[in-house]
């Protein structure tokens, strides 16, 4: 909160509830309060963007499925097809 408007979130609070926000587990009231803070705060605008970028980077790190595993599973699939 600013010293004068106690209803508002501080940045310290924002960084702790940000996952609740991104997971859509906030009440509408809390979500509006969160977004209002972000619009008015340079630091939290940046932090929210960083957090989304970190998540996107993690998503780009998915390993492809091992070729050997794909072959084995294809064999399994063909075996199942035959027995149907």
């Amino acid at each position, binding site marked *: *909160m*600013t*010293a004068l408007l106690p209803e508002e979130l*501080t*940045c*310290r*609070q924002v*960084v*702790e509830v*940000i*996952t*609740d926000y991104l*997971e859509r*587990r906030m009440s509408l009231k809390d979500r509006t309060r969160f977004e209002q803070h972000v619009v008015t*705060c*340079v*630091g*939290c605008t*940046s*932090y929210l*963007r*960083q*957090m989304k*970028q*970190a*998540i996107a*980077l*993690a*998503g*780009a*790190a*998915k*390993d*492809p*499925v091992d070729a050997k*595993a*794909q072959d*084995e*599973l*294809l064999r*399994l*699939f*063909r075996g*199942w*097809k035959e027995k149907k």
Partner: protein
Amino acid sequence: MDDRELVDALRAGDESAFLALVRAHHGSMLRVASMFVPSAAVAEEVVQETWLAVLKGLDGFEGRAPLKSWIFRVLANRARSRAQKEGRSSPFSEFEADDEPAVDGARFLPDDHDRWPGHWSAPPPQWAEERLLTQEMLQIAGVAIDALPPQQRQVIVLRDVEGQSSDDVCEALGVSEGNQRVLLHRARSKVRAVLERHFEEPRR
């Protein structure tokens, strides 16, 4: 392809449809299985058995739940019963303790600041998009994830790396949504902090 079309394609023996499904989920399934059973070899067995069970169960699949949720449920049940046979407890039976704040408290103004208590003392900088999606940063993110405590690592890999839904991950790991969210929060906060430290290093 929606679930209806996918199930029809699989029943018709469409190999590319099956491979697409494998590529989407096999990695996550190995991860989940590995958490319950003692070895990589046993985990692979459990996952293979699951794929076979899924194929055999296709005729009875009514589409009331999403296909992938059903696949995960079959997997989780198999992994758990295998774990029970081997006398192992669930890796999520006890919640990992971790009291570290998402961001070091020193980054914020103190509670007695006259104008902005609890606000950033300096705003975090913007990360240049072109420096972000590089091999180097991918590696750093990967290393950061690998360094996480086990429960946090499992959750962030399943949710953010593998892209599985919250419901499916909670079901597979046998954890509540709230606990899963706390683990995800801690994991993401740590990964972000590692990336930030790297961005702040002068480029060589």
